[in-house]
């Protein structure tokens, strides 16, 4: 039997937090399409905003297997909150890897405490999966960079205090931190989302924003090839683990309903065509979990093949969540198609999970192209 470690305790804490603090708030968060700042402070108090931050900057510095298990717990409860943790991982990991000591000391403790809400801005009106097409332009002027451009579909854009923004400087990739109050920085909320409704998306306009050189993350030329790649790799792993949680939630709801619902004088769980769906759900959730586990172990070992393993995990887990949530709604019949039904939300959220951090088709290109026997 595995001994009880601090990491195991953190997973149990996540389970309790989701049950006691997240689930009772879902209805309110979904209705308002908003998660208040106080909730971020609450998450921070329990350590959840510092999962990827080193201990010396006030974080928990968790290993990847534990991080994955925590994302599974949050994904099982509510993907809008799980995806917030993904954003935090996508900002904090690159900031810690490529940031200067001054940047780390200035920002990481404040992020872990929930004082500074963060966001990552990659996508643009003309650049989604093909990030090399981004048009946000940075021009060096004295000790500042002057930034112009537009960012779209930016998670937490409505409330974040600090944005990790990607652009180009003389055609070379660049990553920099932009503070919310920067003159020329405009935030336009995006409403009416299909899923992950409480993720407070926004379009960002940067109009002659002056950013001090000290806000550059990594070197000019490394913004896309290093910093963005590193961030997206982090996002793929945590999203994959969130999808496993979502799949598990679908499975549990479907089983409960299939036990209780009597049709043709027996619980529908005893009907063979329902059993077929349940079997596919059970096996696919488990397969996705094992792929995430494989990726997590390789990541903990800093094995270069972890990048390919992470691509596979996200590809499989996100497609699994779409399939499994579809079955969960099908098993529920009409009662799964009503606003407020958990499986109705799972169905909507799963589609977003398949699209964020790269759509499945992009993974099909990467995985097939780079696989070696």
């Amino acid at each position, binding site marked *: 039997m595995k001994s009880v470690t601090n990491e195991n305790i953190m997973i149990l804490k996540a389970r309790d937090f989701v049950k006691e603090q997240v689930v009772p708030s879902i209805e309110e968060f979904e209705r308002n399409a908003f998660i208040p700042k106080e909730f971020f402070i609450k998450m921070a108090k329990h350590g959840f905003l510092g999962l990827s931050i080193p201990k010396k900057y006030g974080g928990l510095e968790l290993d990847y297997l534990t991080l994955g298990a925590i994302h599974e717990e949050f994904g099982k409860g509510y993907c809008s909150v799980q995806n917030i943790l993904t954003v935090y991982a996508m900002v904090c990991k690159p900031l810690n890897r*490529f940031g200067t000591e001054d940047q780390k000391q200035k920002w990481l403790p404040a992020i872990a405490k929930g004082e500074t809400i963060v966001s990552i801005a990659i996508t643009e009106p003309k650049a989604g999966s093909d990030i090399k097409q981004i048009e946000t332009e940075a021009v060096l002027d004295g000790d500042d960079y002057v930034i112009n451009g537009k960012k779209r579909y930016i998670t937490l854009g409505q409330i974040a205090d600090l944005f990790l923004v990607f652009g180009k400087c003389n055609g070379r990739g660049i990553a920099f931190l932009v503070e919310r109050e920067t003159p020329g920085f405009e935030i336009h909320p995006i409403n009416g989302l299909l899923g992950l409704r409480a993720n407070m998306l926004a379009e960002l306009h940067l109009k002659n924003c002056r950013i001090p050189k000290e806000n550059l993350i*990594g*070197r000019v*030329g*490394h913004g896309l*090839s*290093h910093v963005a*790649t*590193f961030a997206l*790799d982090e996002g793929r792993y945590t999203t994959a683990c969130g999808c496993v949680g979502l799949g598990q939630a679908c499975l549990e709801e479907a089983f409960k309903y299939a036990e209780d619902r009597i049709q043709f004088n027996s619980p529908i769980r005893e009907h063979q065509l329902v059993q077929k769906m349940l079997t596919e759900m059970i096996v696919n959730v488990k397969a996705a979990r094992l792929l995430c586990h494989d990726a997590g172990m390789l990541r903990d*070992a*800093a*094995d*270069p093949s*972890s*990048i390919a393993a992470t691509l596979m995990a996200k590809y499989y887990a996100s497609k699994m969540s779409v399939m499994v949530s579809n079955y969960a709604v099908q098993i529920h019949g009409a009662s799964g198609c009503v606003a407020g039904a958990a499986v109705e939300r799972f169905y909507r959220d799963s589609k977003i999970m398949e699209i964020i951090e790269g759509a499945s088709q992009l993974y099909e290109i*990467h995985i097939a*192209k*780079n696989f*070696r*026997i």
Partner: protein
Amino acid sequence: MDTMLIKSKIKEYLMRSVRNYEIKDDDNIFELGIVHSLFTIQLIMFIEKNFGIELEDEELDIEKIKTVNDMVELIKNNIEKKEKGALKL
């Protein structure tokens, strides 16, 4: 660690990633188009993990790791730097 050992470790790793292509010591692996866009980070991870070093920001440039010979030089310099640091302690 001697140059030959470093070189053979690098080549072994590269061959895993670019099967069926015989990489020469001065081949620019990025210009050859035999590696994908995620490879830079993968290569950095390989170097740091396998040789127990931590690369500085300025060493993460593609120019510093574009050929096998470049990688050997970078790794040797870092190992030397690390050993000197350890001696001071």
